C-alpha cells in the first residue's frame, strides 16, 4: 500500500547491468519516497547510479528487483506500451545536453510530445506557445535549435517537458552544460514550475543546486541516503 501524499514510492530497488564481462550493481536495495509537489535533487558523484535511478523512475529501465509506484500505480506491472502512454501523460523529461530534434523548430520541438495525442493543431500550437512564452522564448518559436544559445536550448527542453502538463518532471543534469548564471536561471525556472504544482526531480552532481530543492536524496555507490 502507498501513502496518499506520496507521488513516488520506491521499494527494494535493485538494478545491475553487464559492462563487458563485469556485472555492475548500479542500484542496490533502494527504498525512498517523494511527496507530491516536492522539489528533489538526486545528488551524487559521476557513476553513482543517479541517472540509472532517474530512468527507472521514468519507466524507461526495468529494474532487476523491487517496485516503483507513481501515484499508487505499479509502474513495472504495466506493459511497455502502457508505460509509453503513462510517460506521455504523467512524466516530463529534461535530458542531459538538451536533446532537441535538430531539424525541428522550437515550436515543433515543444509540440513533439503532443504528436501522439488527438488534439487539434490549433490547440497544440496554443498550448506550445503558452509554455514557450513561459520559458521566455516567445520571439524565437520559429528558430531551429542550433540558432539558440545553450541556456535557450535548455529552456526549450523544459518547455517540451511541461507542454502536456505532467505532474512529474524528471531532469537529468539540466545545468551540466551551462555557465553558472544560466544554470541559476534554469534552476529558478524549475523552482517556479514546482511552485505551480509540478513535482520536480533533478539529477545533479553540483552541490550548489541543492539550495533550490525542498529536499535532497544523496546517491552513492548505488545506495541512497535520504
Amino acid at each position: 500500500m502507498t501513502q496518499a501524499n506520496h507521488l513516488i514510492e520506491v521499494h527494494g530497488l535493485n538494478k545491475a547491468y553487464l559492462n563487458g564481462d563485469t556485472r555492475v550493481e548500479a542500484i542496490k536495495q533502494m527504498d525512498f519516497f517523494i511527496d507530491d509537489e516536492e522539489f528533489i535533487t538526486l545528488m551524487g558523484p559521476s557513476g553513482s547510479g543517479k541517472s540509472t535511478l532517474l530512468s527507472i523512475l521514468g519507466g524507461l529501465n526495468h529494474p532487476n528487483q523491487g517496485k516503483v509506484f507513481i501515484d499508487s500505480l505499479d509502474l513495472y506491472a504495466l506493459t511497455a506500451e502502457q508505460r509509453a502512454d503513462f510517460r506521455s501523460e504523467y512524466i516530463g523529461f529534461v535530458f542531459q545536453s538538451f536533446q532537441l530534434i535538430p531539424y525541428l523548430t522550437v515550436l515543433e520541438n515543444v509540440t513533439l510530445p503532443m504528436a501522439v495525442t488527438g488534439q487539434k493543431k490549433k490547440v497544440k500550437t496554443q498550448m506550445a506557445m503558452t509554455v514557450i512564452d513561459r520559458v521566455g522564448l516567445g520571439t524565437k518559436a520559429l528558430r531551429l535549435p542550433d540558432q539558440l544559445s545553450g541556456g535557450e536550448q535548455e529552456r526549450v527542453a523544459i518547455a517540451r517537458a511541461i507542454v502536456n502538463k505532467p505532474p512529474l518532471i524528471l531532469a537529468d543534469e539540466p545545468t551540466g552544460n551551462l555557465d553558472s548564471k544560466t544554470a541559476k536561471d534554469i534552476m529558478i525556472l524549475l523552482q517556479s514550475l514546482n511552485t505551480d504544482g509540478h513535482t520536480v526531480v533533478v539529477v545533479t552532481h553540483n552541490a550548489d543546486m541543492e539550495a533550490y530543492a525542498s529536499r535532497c536524496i544523496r546517491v552513492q555507490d548505488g545506495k541512497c541516503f535520504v
Partner: protein
Amino acid sequence: MKLHNISLGNIQRRKGKMLFLVLGLVMGISTVVTLVSITESMTWNIEQRLNQFGANIVMVPKSDRLSLHYGGINVGGVNYQVREFDQKKLSDIRTIKNHKNLSIIAPKVLGPVTVKNKTVLLMGVVFEQELALKTWWHKSAGRFPERENDVMLGSRAAALLGYKVGDTIRLSDRAFNIAAILRPTGASEDDAIMVSLIAGQTVLGKEGKLSMVEISAFCQGCPISEMTLQIAEKFPHAKVTAMKQAVMSKMQSIEMFKSFSLGVSILVILIGSLLVMVTMMGSVNERTREIGIFRAIGFRRGHVMQIILLEALLLGIIGGIMGFVTGNLMACSLIPMVIKDGVFAGINSTLGIVSLFMAVALSLLASLYPAVKASNMDPSEALRAL
C-alpha cells in the same frame, strides 16, 4: 505537430542519404519500365510489320483433293476448276468473338480469261482492301484503278501480252482501260490481270461468288489459332488456315526476351531493395538518440514504426514516379538501337500505376525490418547514448 512532420523533417535533413535511397528505387523501377516498354514496343513493331507483310489468315473453299502445287510450281497440270463460296455470307466474319482484332478483309474471285490467245489468271479484287493488305505493291506506271472499267496488269502479264498504261484490253467482249502496271513482286500477281471484284465476277460469270478471302488480323492479345477456329465455325464449307509460322517465330523471340527481362528485373529489384534496406538501417542507426527521445516522451512502438514507414512511403512514391519517367525516357532512346527502325509504342498508364505500387511496396517491405528494429529499441539503451 504530427508524425508525418517528423518524417518530412527527417527527409529534408538527410537529403543526401534519401537521394541515395530514391536512386536505388529509381534504378530498380526504371529498369523494369525500360525492359517492359522495350518488350511492348518490340511486339508492337513486329505486329506493324506483320500487318504490312499481308494476310495472316486465308479462307478458301474446302476441297477433298490434295494440293499438287509447291513453291509456285504446279505439278498436276493445268487446272481451271476453282471452287467458290457465297459472297453474301462474308459479313458473318465480323460476328466472330475476336472481331475487333480483324483488320483487313480482302475477298477475291479467281478464274482464267483468254487474251490474245493466251490464258491469263484474272483476279477480281476490292482494290481498296487489296492495296491496304499488300503494301509492297507499287505501280511502275499509271494510277491505281479507281473506276469500274479500270484494270491493273502484273509486270510479266503486261510484258508477255504487250500492253502498256492507257491501252484498252478486252476481257470476254468487255473493254477495260489499263490504269496501271505493277512492278515485279515475285508472286502470282506478276502473271495476273486485276479488275474490280464486281467486274471480275461478271467477266468470269461468277456473280455473287468468291474464290478466296485473305484476312489480316492484329495478333496482340489474340491467339491467331483461336481466331481461325472462330472463322471456321462460321464457314463450315471453307478451309481456314493461319499463316502463323512467321508470327510464331517472332513471338517466340519476344517471349525469350520477356523471360530475360523478367530475370533482369527481379535481380535489379533485389539489388534496389537491398540498397533501400541498407540505407534505412543506416538512417535508423544514426537516429538511435532521436528514437530514444521519442520513446521517452511517450511515443509507442507503433508510432516509431509509423514515422519510418511514412518516410519509406513518401520516398517510394517519389522513386516510383521518377523511375517510371526515367524508364520511359530510357526506352525511348534505346528502342531505335534495339529494333531497327523501331518506334516507341507509347506510354503505358497501367505500367505507370503498377510501377508506383511496386516502388511503394518495395520501399515499405525493405524498410519493414529497420522500422521493426527501431520500434523495438530499448529506450534506456537508446538514451544511454545521450
